[in-house]
Structure formats: structure tokens, C-alpha cells
């Protein structure tokens, strides 16, 4: 059986670990020892679109990780640097896959080891109901592509493994078109949700009156498209169409940036909106609206101490 390490057991890490445990030998690396103990003792329950309890290994100590062919780093973007640092010198022979939102995750990991690297973005979502229970909410795909020392064939093998476990995945020769589609989508939807307090609902697609929110959303998407074009990236999906489609699902999704702001936690702003804005500035593309959203959310984080 393939041996897999999933580092980070938030909702995405938990969904991956539990489903992969049906077709592979999975060990979860957690931050807290109680979390690892709960997973070892109770297994990891999945409800929602899947319904089973997975048996898997778990530890909070990177040195205790078994040898593995694949390691998926599934923490939030804000936790990736410390996680990669903890993994330095471990997981010899493993291919490491990032799955964070935004841009730059691969470079962060690359600086801490010479593992072969895969990139991925995921569109699935889940809700954690405790350390040993995750609800599978949106069953959309995870997209995987080569990054350093890997090929499309490596991406395909991982996609097939994830599919065999019961999730959706697809391999691409170059992930950037998909990564940028999601980057622009997230920079727009997450930023606007965090500032307005609105979940990703019908307001984001409303474009009748001049002050309708959908007009701002569309203008932000257009700025993002201009940056992608300047970066030479041909988008895989139109982020505006992704936005409209998501609002039509009838499921009022609360983007993580909104949840973070409401809970006064640091957001993934820097790796999403910050990354897009910095690309725009580097390429000389004018993005006044995205710059405004970036500055406003950054200031909102600064207001936590008020």
C-alpha cells in the first residue's frame, strides 16, 4: 500500500487524510498532541457527502513520521512557513504536495528541503466538528500539477490515488492556469466577504443597479484577469463564471477570510490578495480596486487590537 503523510488536519487535511486512508496507509501530522491522540483512538469520522470512519496513524512529532511516498501539506497559508520548517530533514524520498490558497506556497516549502514538489489547488470544502469529525460539504475537485522535479505523470498518479479514495481530482501539465483562476476568484470573493460580512451569496452576482455588489466583483475580476494576462497566464476558468456558478448553488458559503475576520484571526490576505497585488505592481498593471480591498482588509486585521 502507498504510504501517505497528511500534515495539517483542518477541514481540507482531514478530508484528504480520511478518504486516502481507504486506499493508502495514512499518517496525520497535527500541531497538538491531543489532536493526534484523538485521531489514533477514535479514528476520523466523515459525514456529509461521505459517511465512514477512517483508521489512520497520527502524531504531533515530525521525527516520528514513517517513511512515505507522498506528503500533502494541508495547513492554512499562514501556518505553512513554520510547518515546512518543522519538516526540514524529514520525509526522505517523499514527494511533497502543497494545496494552499493563493500564490507562493511551493517556494516556501522549496526553501526547507529538496523534496520533489507538486502544486495543487482544491475547490472542495468541509467543516470540522471537532478533532475527529469532519463534514464533507462541497465535493468539487482538487487539481494537481508538477512543480519541481516532478512530471504530469506524477501528478496523475496522485490524482488517481485521491480519486480511488472517493474524492475528486484531476492532473494538469501546468497548474498555473487553474491556480490563477482560483487566485483571482479568492482575492475577489474572500476580500469582499471579509469586508461586508456577507457569505458568498446572490449579492456577489447582482449587477442591475450601479451600486450592486456584483459590479464591484466583476471589476475586481477584470483587474485580476489583466494581471494574469500580463503574467502570460491563460486562465483555465473565468473567475466571474466561477463566482456566478457558486452563488447559484444555493449554498451560502462563508469564505475562510470572513470567518477569520469575525473571529479576529490573521487571514490569508498576504498569500491571496497580497500576492495578486504584488504581481500587479511587479508587472506594472494598475489594480486600484484590488489595492483598496487589500489595504482595507489589512487595516481590518489591525483593528483587532482596538
Amino acid at each position, binding site marked *: 500500500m502507498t504510504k501517505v503523510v497528511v500534515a495539517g488536519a483542518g477541514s481540507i487535511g482531514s478530508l484528504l487524510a480520511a478518504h486516502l486512508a481507504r486506499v493508502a496507509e495514512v499518517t496525520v501530522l497535527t500541531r497538538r498532541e491531543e489532536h493526534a491522540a484523538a485521531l489514533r483512538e477514535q479514528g476520523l469520522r466523515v459525514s456529509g457527502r461521505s459517511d465512514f470512519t477512517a483508521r489512520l496513524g497520527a502524531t504531533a512529532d515530525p521525527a516520528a513520521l514513517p517513511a512515505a511516498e507522498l506528503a500533502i501539506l494541508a495547513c492554512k497559508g499562514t501556518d505553512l512557513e513554520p510547518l515546512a520548517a518543522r519538516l526540514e530533514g524529514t520525509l526522505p524520498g517523499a514527494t511533497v504536495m502543497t494545496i494552499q490558497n493563493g500564490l507562493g506556497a511551493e517556494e516556501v516549502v522549496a526553501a526547507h528541503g529538496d523534496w520533489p514538489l507538486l502544486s495543487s489547488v482544491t475547490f472542495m470544502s468541509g467543516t470540522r466538528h471537532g478533532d475527529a469529525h469532519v463534514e464533507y460539504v462541497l465535493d468539487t475537485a482538487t487539481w494537481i500539477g508538477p512543480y519541481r522535479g516532478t512530471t504530469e505523470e506524477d501528478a496523475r498518479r496522485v490524482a488517481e490515488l485521491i480519486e480511488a479514495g472517493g474524492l475528486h481530482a484531476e492532473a494538469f501539465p501546468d497548474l498555473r492556469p487553474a491556480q490563477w483562476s482560483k487566485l483571482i476568484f479568492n482575492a475577489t470573493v474572500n476580500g469582499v466577504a471579509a469586508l461586508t*460580512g456577507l457569505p458568498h451569496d446572490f449579492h456577489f452576482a447582482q449587477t442591475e443597479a450601479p*451600486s450592486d*455588489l456584483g459590479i*464591484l466583483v466583476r*471589476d475586481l475580476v477584470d483587474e485580476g484577469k489583466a494581471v494574469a494576462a500580463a503574467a502570460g497566464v491563460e486562465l483555465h476558468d473565468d473567475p466571474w463564471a466561477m463566482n456566478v456558478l457558486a452563488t447559484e448553488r444555493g449554498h451560502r458559503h462563508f469564505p475562510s477570510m470572513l470567518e477569520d475576520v469575525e473571529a479576529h484571526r490573521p487571514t490569508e490576505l498576504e498569500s491571496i490578495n497580497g500576492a495578486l497585488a504584488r504581481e500587479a505592481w511587479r508587472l506594472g498593471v494598475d489594480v486600484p480596486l484590488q489595492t*483598496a480591498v487589500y*489595504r482595507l482588509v489589512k*487595516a481590518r486585521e*489591525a*483593528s483587532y487590537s482596538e
Partner: protein
Amino acid sequence: MGCGAVGSLFAANLSLLDDVEVWAFDLNELHTAAINRGGLRLSGAGDVVGQPRATSDASELPACEFGIVATKAMHTEPAIAATAHAFADGYVATVQNGLGNEETIAGHVEGVIRGTTFPAGKLLEPGHVQWDVQGDTTFGPYDERTPLAEVERLADACTRAGMPADAVEDARGPQWRKVIFNASTNPIGALTGLTHGRVCERPDLRALVTGLVDEGKAVAAAQGIELDADPEELIDHAARPEVAYDHKASMLQDVEARRQTEVDYLNGGIVRFGAEHGVPTPLNAAIQALVKGVEASWTQN
């Protein structure tokens, strides 16, 4: 019309003049009853007990020479629609925030006076208003149907009552100065939760404020309006610790209390006049959409 904090400052002070009879119209019956029982009390920057006649029933209003509308901007239409009968031969001034109040009032009465006022306070309890800040008021004719001499009569009465007021031929300068100030700072406070001083000390956010100010100035210039002061200087002045560093913008207070904001009349007004004069206002439009989104979130969640 609209006897909240600002309306009460005018009503109480004007009622002290021997040659002026003041009626206070407000929908809050507890407030009007308290005024009729014990007078309208101001305390703070000035201590005054005025004796206006107060009512929540517009049909009680006699024919008046002047009206002053002091409601929130979104209540202008119902306020003037209910009271217009009292001003068939009179003139109605607005001392409200934002753009578009004059147009709304002109839909119901002939004689309209544009006004901008800086005094501020808050309603403490029915019949009692805290007077926080003294300040000047500028009045001017809205169009040729209002003679400057009538505007001067109103300004003179206000000045004699302790509310210093000027009458000028074109009162758009002070109005746009105040609108640009408010539209460029209030929503930033409302969206970030930061006080005025903390907004201004973050260079990235201060740059966003300047972007909003520049759009407002361009829209004013396209109409031939000369601002009577540079909003940038007023914004920096207000950010000083001894002025308004710790001030939470009224729009931030509105958002925290989940009250509808005046964003449609501030940023929305700049966007509307910009569109009429071919001046792009993308940042003001974005800020308006975000604050409208905040308002929408209260009913969605």
C-alpha cells in the same frame, strides 16, 4: 423637520429669539411630548432650554416663512412630503449631510436653500440633547427661485440665536468640502473599524483616502465648484490627537449599531454627479458597494 441632535440645536436656539416662533416636527412622540412638557434642553458646548412647539402631526404645522430639514438623508423625502403644505410661501433649508437633499426638497416646495452645518451633538434622552461641537453654517440659494435676501434673513436669525451662519450666493463649496471629507473618511472607518486618527496614520490607508478625495475634487471641479478649503488639510487636521484622533466616524457608529448609513448620499452622491459630468469615480463606487454589502449582511445573516 427632524429634531435629532442637529435639528434640536437649531430649534432650541432659534426659539430663544423674541421675533421667531419655532415649531419642531419629529416622528418620535416621546421626544415631542417631552419638549412640550419641559422644553428642549441643550447642554455641553452651550446650556440652553428652548421652548419650541413640538409635534409629530404634520397637519398641525401653520404656514411658515422658513423650514430647516435636519433628518438623516434617507428620510428627506417623507419629511418634506409630509410638511410641504406649511411652506407654500416659505423657503426650506437643508442642513443635512450628503448630496441630493436639495433636489428632493425642490420636488415639493418652490423655495429651497442649500445649507452645510458643522455643529454636532447627540440626543441623550427625550427633550435633552448634548451639544458637543459649536460650528458655522453656510446657506445659499438652491436656484433662482430663492432670493439671496431671504437666505440672509435666515442666516441673520441663526447668528442672533447663537448659531453663526453666513449667506452666500454659491454654497456648494462648503457643501462639497464637507461631503468629500465625509465620503473619503467615514466609510473607511466603517469598513475597517478604525478611528479617524488610526485610518490616517496608516500610509496605505491614507493613500486610499487621497484616492477618494481626488475623485471628489474632480467631480466638484467639473461642475465649476470652488472648494472653500482643501479636504486633505482638514482630514490631517482632524487626525491630530487634540482634535479627533479617537473619533469613531458616525458611519462606523451606524455600522456597529446596524443602522442604515448615509453612504448613498455621500459616496453615492459623488458617483451620481460624476456620471452626470463624465468624471469616473471607481473608488467611490467600490466603497459604496462595500458599505451597501455591509448593510445587506444584517438581513441575510
